């Protein structure tokens, strides 16, 4: 059952209960009031009638007439027959509760005998066949004999009035309930509408549409819930995007890796198969052997860098403080032989915090990249300068081929190569800069690359400077 229907049902039930209880009390009080009034009125009437009867009897005594039951009854008859109030009736009983006279309809079923015994004046209500009577009993002592006189008054009017009220109440109550049902339904629907929209949004999100949001502006609890819900959805979306990105990066890495692995493997297998099957001519053999050598070299470099990359993601590094200019000088002296370009140093002295071995990998990679770009002046400059905020910046500057604009942002991606054919010739793997990026991340630093095609490239990063 929908919540708004429950709400309507609940409110309508409550209203019905309250209405019926209050109505019941009102009708009951009204009825009791009118009954009380009627009792007063009828007892007055009763007193008047008895008085008249007494008068008649006193007259009889004064005129010396014989008083007998028959006479009294005749008197009474006259009295009632000439009275305007025809609804009233009378019954007379003897001492032995025998009915002497009655003009009350259906008197037998009224069970009058039970009330005759009362000493004092007494009234009671009796119902016979849809007619209600108010009965007054009184007893007279005449001729050494007690007779009972019962006066009956028709009180149907107040019952009819009560029934009429009840009917009216029923009709008005039905109207009230119908109108209030409609009004409450409208309110309930309006109130629960935000919940509905919240529900719809939840379903959309559950079906994978994570950018869906609730649009509820109200400031009540539902509005608050909607706000919290949106916050939660933001968090979930962020997390999912993050995870998706991770999966994508992982996939990209695997794709790049398999490509980088399978290509040299295909070549090595293919050429060596060629060589071992056939007695090939000199030229083809040289070609095949050269390919096998260069592709194996490529695999070797790739595996070395990959191992470095893997070891990096597994362990946390220990940073030490050391003098950087001396370190770079030493390193360049040892490595310069492998580069075609001349390496110029321009280093300020400073102590920095870092992992020597890993920083060597970074600088060597940057030098390799610069060397591969074939600087026009055959020169690579390593510049080290102290910056503000206790930073030490190391830049590797070349006047080589540069990186086309559209590639700059992507060069640090795993296996990304600007010019594959060119990179291949120099057994590049496309993994050098991503290794640099990872190492610098461990130093809370990052690599910046500024480059213009055919003019040159500057790659730089900053390290934390330490006082010593």
């Amino acid at each position, binding site marked *: 059952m929908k919540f708004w229907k429950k709400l309507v049902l609940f409110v309508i039930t409550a209203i019905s209960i309250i209405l019926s209880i209050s109505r019941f009390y009102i009708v009951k009080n009204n009825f009791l009031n009118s009954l009380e009034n009627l009792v007063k009125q009828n007892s007055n009437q009763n007193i008047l009638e008895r008085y008249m009867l007494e008068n008649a009897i006193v007259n009889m005594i004064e005129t010396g007439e014989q008083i007998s039951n028959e006479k009294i009854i005749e008197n009474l008859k006259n009295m009632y027959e000439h009275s305007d109030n025809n609804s009233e009736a009378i019954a007379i009983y003897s001492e032995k509760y025998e009915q002497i006279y009655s003009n009350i309809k259906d008197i037998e079923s009224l069970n009058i005998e039970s009330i005759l015994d009362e000493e004092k004046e007494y009234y009671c209500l009796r119902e016979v066949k849809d007619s209600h009577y108010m009965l007054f009993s009184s007893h007279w002592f005449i001729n050494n004999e007690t007779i009972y006189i019962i006066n009956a008054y028709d009180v149907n009017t107040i019952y009819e009035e009560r029934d009429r009220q009840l009917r009216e109440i029923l009709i008005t109550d039905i109207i009230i309930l119908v109108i209030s049902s409609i009004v409450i339904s409208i309110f309930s629907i309006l109130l629960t509408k935000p919940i509905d929209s919240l529900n719809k949004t939840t379903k959309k999100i559950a079906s994978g549409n994570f950018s869906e949001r609730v649009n509820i502006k109200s400031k009540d609890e539902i509005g608050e819930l909607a706000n919290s819900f949106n916050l939660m959805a933001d968090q979930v979306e962020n997390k999912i995007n993050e995870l998706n990105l991770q999966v994508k990066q992982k996939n990209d890495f695997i*794709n790049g890796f398999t490509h980088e692995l399978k290509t040299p493997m295909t070549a090595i297998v293919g050429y060596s198969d060629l060589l071992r099957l056939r007695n090939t001519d000199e030229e083809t053999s040289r070609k095949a052997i050269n390919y096998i050598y260069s592709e194996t070299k490529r695999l070797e470099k790739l595996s070395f860098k990959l191992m470095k990359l893997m070891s990096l993601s597994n362990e946390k590094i220990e940073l030490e403080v050391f003098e950087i200019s001396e370190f770079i000088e030493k390193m360049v002296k040892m490595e310069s032989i492998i580069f075609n370009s001349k390496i110029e140093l321009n280093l300020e002295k400073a102590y920095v915090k870092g992992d020597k071995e890993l920083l060597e990998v970074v600088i060597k990679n940057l030098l390799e990249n610069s060397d591969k770009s074939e600087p026009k002046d055959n020169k690579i400059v390593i510049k080290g300068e102290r910056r503000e905020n206790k930073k030490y910046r190391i830049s590797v500057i070349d006047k080589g081929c540069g990186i086309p604009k559209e590639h700059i942002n992507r060069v640090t991606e795993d296996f990304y190569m600007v010019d*594959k*054919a060119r990179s291949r010739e120099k057994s590049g793997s496309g993994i050098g800069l991503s290794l640099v990026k990872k190492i610098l991340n461990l130093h809370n630093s990052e690599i910046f690359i500024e480059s213009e095609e055919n003019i040159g490239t500057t790659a730089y990063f900053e390290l934390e400077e330490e006082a010593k």
Partner: protein
Amino acid sequence: MNKILIVEDEIAISDLIKIALENRGYMCQTAKDGEIASNYIEKNVYDLILLDIMLPKVDGYELLDYIRKSYETPTIFITAKSQTEDKIKGLNLGADDYITKPFEIEELVARVEAVLRRYNKGNEEQNFGDVSINFANRSVKKLGKNVSLTPKEFDLLILLIQNRNCALYREVIFEKVWGEELEFETRTLDLHIQRLRKKLGWKDKIKTVYKIGYMLEI
């Protein structure tokens, strides 16, 4: 003679394919990126295109789309991507076949020939002197008369033909025909060569090369 375009940015691989296919008697041209390839396709008519997916400038999917819109040249994808969805994508785009790296060169040649046969471009029946070989149903005729060969004999014949005019090492011949698991038995190989010579009358054509093995000279 069938003309094949090899679109592959790895020069080592494209050279390898070229050497293998040229030896089988195909004419090959290589293109190292999608742009060069599309220029070639516009200028020349090819019987088959071998297409790498990861290419600089215009990638293999795009190039295939372009080929399919304007030409009916059969195309085989070559790629390092081995995921099923990549294969399906390639085949849905209209590639005729799909080969993943690393591949054995024999497999590549077999696929090239299968696709060419499907297009009726490759000769289902190829003549080598007085012997004609039907690659599709693996039957051999000499002067129009059927010659019945055992499966191993047929495989051996194909290997010799695919590497015709090259001296082949005995151990490797054995390995390629009988599989890597079996230990090399020179007698088995010699016996099959003798039977082939006899059945085809190729006593002079299948030559014994001293210290190396055998060579088919056609």
